[in-house]
């Protein structure tokens, strides 16, 4: 706490100094300066010169008005695409989980797909639970998908062709291991198999007879029994427990942010998913924007490509600027442009022109392609400045 106060003091000091020198630094700059101040043990005089130098560098490196930042950002994100691998699946970080990577993943993010190929979550725990062996294991089994097959006794599953029934014996130890409630399992089995009969002598043994007595039906039922889900959250498949440095982390196949965040003991700040739409639904549009930035950044840096974060921010901001995550392409941003010509020049030319005619749309020619199409200078960069003439001035003047 004391340290925080000190830092706050320093922050105020640097901000004041900056204001005196006539600049307004973004917050991150002030924090950087404070950090450097601490690291290098600067004197006040040095701090002052540092602020002056940073001010100079900052002012020199500002974007100029009219700069086509959009195009530059699009190129900077798109160009490395050619250098990326197509290898879809690879083990990212966690050895046991496959995650979509490279170009397919990048396309998935920009497309803002509602269902992604490999949703995955990283669940962190709160301070008091992050080393709680018991708790973590229990939770992993609760949220992870388990099927009857996972708790069967060794050789505990038989298809009895003679009597036309499926017999199964559940291993009580496995149920115990997984910290599952056997009563609930029983209920689940009974619910999906009305004809399930439990052995009155051994509660862990049961058999099922198919609805129609034929071998095909029997075999289908056998598979159904084995694949019957007895626990887990919707959408979540495998769960892998990993010990990282001083804490446990759960990695999941599949994602269900809403439900996971409601679980006690889960760190609500660190826990995350790679499913952007889910983040948008649960945490809102700003969170979705940050998720897009993080996911793109991660996909690119995983391939060893460096792209300035500002470009990625612009892509993310463009995708989220209307309050919902919009895809880049004909169903999202490009399809919702107000300019008829811009839409027609992108995709589905005929449809846009025909619709424009019955709707009576007006093309105001404010965009880039529109002006290229009609052969006028574009309103960007050097084309965004104009000469203004005041024809009446002369009359009044002379």
């Amino acid at each position, binding site marked *: 706490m004391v340290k925080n106060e000190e830092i706050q003091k320093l922050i105020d000091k640097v901000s004041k100094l900056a204001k005196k020198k006539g600049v307004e630094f973004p917050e*991150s700059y002030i924090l950087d*300066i404070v*950090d*450097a101040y601490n690291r290098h043990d600067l004197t006040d005089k040095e701090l002052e010169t*540092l602020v002056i*130098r940073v001010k100079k560098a*900052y002012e020199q*490196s*500002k*974007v*100029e008005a*009219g700069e*086509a*930042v*959009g*195009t*530059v*950002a699009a*190129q900077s994100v*798109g*160009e*490395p*695409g*050619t250098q*990326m691998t*197509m290898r879809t699946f*690879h083990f990212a970080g966690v*050895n*046991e989980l496959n995650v979509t990577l490279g170009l397919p993943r*990048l396309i998935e993010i*920009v497309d803002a797909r509602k269902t992604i190929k490999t949703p995955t979550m990283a669940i962190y725990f709160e301070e008091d639970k992050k080393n709680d062996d018991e708790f973590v294991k229990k939770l992993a089994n609760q949220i992870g998908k388990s099927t009857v097959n996972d708790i069967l006794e060794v050789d505990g599953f038989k298809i009895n062709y003679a009597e036309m029934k499926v017999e199964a014996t559940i291993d009580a130890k496995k149920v115990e291991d997984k910290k599952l409630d056997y009563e609930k399992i029983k209920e689940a089995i009974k619910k999906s198999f009305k004809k399930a009969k439990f052995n009155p002598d051994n509660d862990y043994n049961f058999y099922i007879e198919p609805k129609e007595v034929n071998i095909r039906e029997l075999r289908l039922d056998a598979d159904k029994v084995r694949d019957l889900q007895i626990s887990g959250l919707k959408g979540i498949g495998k*769960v892998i*427990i990993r010990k990282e440095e001083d804490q446990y982390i759960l990695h999941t*196949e599949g994602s269900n942010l809403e439900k996971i965040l409601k679980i006690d003991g889960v760190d609500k700040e660190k826990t995350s998913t790679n499913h952007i739409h889910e983040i948008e639904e649960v945490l809102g549009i700003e969170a979705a924007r940050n998720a897009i930035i993080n996911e793109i950044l991660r996909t690119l840096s995983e391939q060893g490509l460096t*792209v300035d974060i*500002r*470009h990625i921010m612009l*892509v993310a901001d*463009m995708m989220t*600027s209307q309050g919902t995550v919009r895809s*880049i392409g004909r169903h999202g941003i*490009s399809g919702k442009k107000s300019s008829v010509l811009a839409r027609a020049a*992108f995709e589905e030319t*005929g449809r846009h*022109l025909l619709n*424009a005619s*019955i709707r*009576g*749309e*007006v*093309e*105001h*020619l*404010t965009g880039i*392609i529109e002006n*290229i*199409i009609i052969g*006028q200078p574009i309103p960007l*960069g*050097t084309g965004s400045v104009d000469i203004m003439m005041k024809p009446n001035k002369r009359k009044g003047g002379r």
Partner: protein
Amino acid sequence: MKEIIKKIDHINFGLMSPENIRKNSVIKIVTPDTYDEDGYPIENGLMDPHLGVIDPSLKCKTCGSKGGECLGHFGSIDLARPVVHVGFADNIYKILRSVCNECGRVLLTDTEIENFKYEILMAMDNEESINEIIKRVQDAAKKDKCPHCEEKQSDIKIDKPTSINDGDYRLTASEIRDRLERITDEDALVLGVNPKVARPEWMVLTVLPVPPVTVRPSITLETGERSEDDLTHKLVDILRINQRLSENMEAGAPQLIVEDLWELLQYHVTTYFDNEASGVPPARHRSGRPLKTLAQRLKGKEGRFRSNLSGKRVNFSARTVISPDPNISINEVGVPEMIATEVTVPVHVNDWNIEELKKYILNGPEVHPGANYVIRSDDRKIRVYDDTKDSIIENIEPGWVVERHLKDGDIVLFNRQPSLHRMSMMAHEVKVLPYKTFRLNLCVCPPYNADFDGDEMNMHVFQTDESRAEAKSLMRVQEHILSPRFGGPIIGAIHDHISGAYLLTRNGSTFTEEQAFQIIRKAKLPIPKRKNPNDNPELGTNWTGKELFSLLLPEKLNLEYKGEICKNCQVCKERDCEFDSYVVIEDGELKYGALDEKAYGSFSGKILDKIVKDYGSDTAKEFLDRSTNMAISGIMKVGITTSTNDEEIPQEAQDRIQAHLDDAEENVDRHVKAYEEGELEALPGRSLEETLEMKIMQVLGEARDKSGEIAESYFAMETNHSVVMAKTGARASMLNLTQITACVGQQSVRGGRISRGYIERTLPHFRKNELGAKARGFVHSSYKSGLDPVEFFFHAMGGREGLVDTAIRTAQSGYMQRRLVNALQDLKVTENGLVQDNKGNVIQTMFGEDGVDPAKSDHGKAADLDKIIKEMRIKK
């Protein structure tokens, strides 16, 4: 007199009414024929001269101007029976479904209409898409009973593409039109038809506009045969059927025949608009090729929009093969004389240049610094010929324009496709050179992504002073040394420049005074006075490479970094690094360390990065030109050579590698055995098979790495030039070398070991379900020792996957880039620092949260604080 340039303010879109079509029509087309036997266009035919003319010798009968000047005029065809416009068929269906069959009112209550109308008008005011609202209207208007006349509604269905059924009864186009006519203007608006510009019934055609001949010119083949445009063919079809239909109707033919003809007319009009409409067999040319009708002309990559409107063909451009030239500057381009005499620069004649221009005219179009055309004050263009030369020279006066040949120092635009980023188009200075290829400096290969295996590039010559000025200040090569993608250099030294710099500057590399002077001369530096000549008495009059390179560095340059050859020791000895990899530059003098890719290579050059940022792009350009030249002359003095001997290792090493690989194979077999006996334990979340695969992959990967390490330990950087190239980052990698020497390693398809081919095995050489190293694509051999046939086959499998991969990837990433650019292109930074789109929506209040241009930043930061502090302290 030049005309006043008019600016288009806006374009209104709307539907043409039948009256409108008739009003715009200069002639009614009746005859389905085009030309008579003499080759003259038939009156009231599709080539009627009222529609405009193409042949310059003919005159347009409507406007009287000659062919080429007349833009053409529309005609019209009166259809015997109305016909549905395909493009609107879906709209018509949706409108009819939402409208009362009896009274023609929209199936909404008055309050609903009022609300939707308000919403639509609001959206239209804000220029937002009303598609969503219309969709809601259509959903709301699914009522069984009309709220206005209480009539029960029957089900309306569409039968693609153009027929609409009311229950079981198929509506004719006339009936559809009647129903649409009943819709009031107010209802039309709610249904998505803006009554200001369109009426629903106009979507059913009664008159067809006929485009002027200039839109569908006929071509005369060499044989004298005339070939008509696809549109003309289609119009002929329409006219023919139309004629037959009206004849039959007049003659009172049976209803069935009339209906058949009517449907045929509908088919032809449909395919006239869109020959790819679903549910309609495309109309074909005699040869069987589908016709290209109106929609096809506009659509897609080769359509009017993308091919002719968004992209335009230009004059004053050239294209040829490129080849390297280390002797020209990075911002120059070698232009073949042949091209230089063909593409020209327009120069306005004035008192100061008239003599020079006369000389060019005298040279004529053939001799190099010549001229091809002159443009007189009255805008007449005159070609310079031997016979016209003298009269031109006599008459030339200020106010004329001379189109002179390209000469040294002109600014041109140079481009290589695919133009993936802005560095794919840069402005170069022309240097006219002999032979027939474009020459470019090797440093600009990375931004263009060019090599010389037959690549071609384009050159464009600026035609106005404004464009030249703009290019000079924004597009020149040196302005693009830093990439906006990551704020580091993208133009820089490659290949021999890097190994050259290393050989030049590594410890122990000395040159006699004569050699040194040659190198200095080659770098176009003045012969300097030696700094501290007697620092090192051993050296005598000899120069060290570091001394030589220091001559290029700007004074007061201070820099410290770890080089590419750095071995990442646990404790860095910094200046005492025994590998010469810790580079220290003090006051513009290279004190320690040998230079490599990290010094001035493209993508990673630290010295280059520092020079651009601190001393400006022109200094950086000079530095690059000189340092690459010095490196190359250095490499020529030291000598560099490589052969397979570089990858030779003693027998003892080979034995060790072999032993190691055998070990690994045994290890794999052990794993397989464990798996087969069920002793293998599965990793959490993995099946047994997956676990086995992962373990084997790991063992084999380690085996390859280890054998590589063994081989590597026999490679000496001092004598082995292959290793020099790999370690300095000039070309190739140590992995490549160890694959040549020791072991190629595991081949993979789809990210795993090779597992497909024959039933349950990869090749018939193996037992079924064999899981050993060799059976699944592990290549023990090295490239040098040669692969056995099985290995060779697996290697080819892996190689083929790579090729396919690349082909698919380029297509995918190209489309992604197109979408990205299309979505973001309208964004710009305004005067007050906001990022806005063309509608004025604010996307960011400050670009990238700090308003810093990544191209001007230092790897993403406006300022590197540590660097500044270090500098501050050095100064004191």
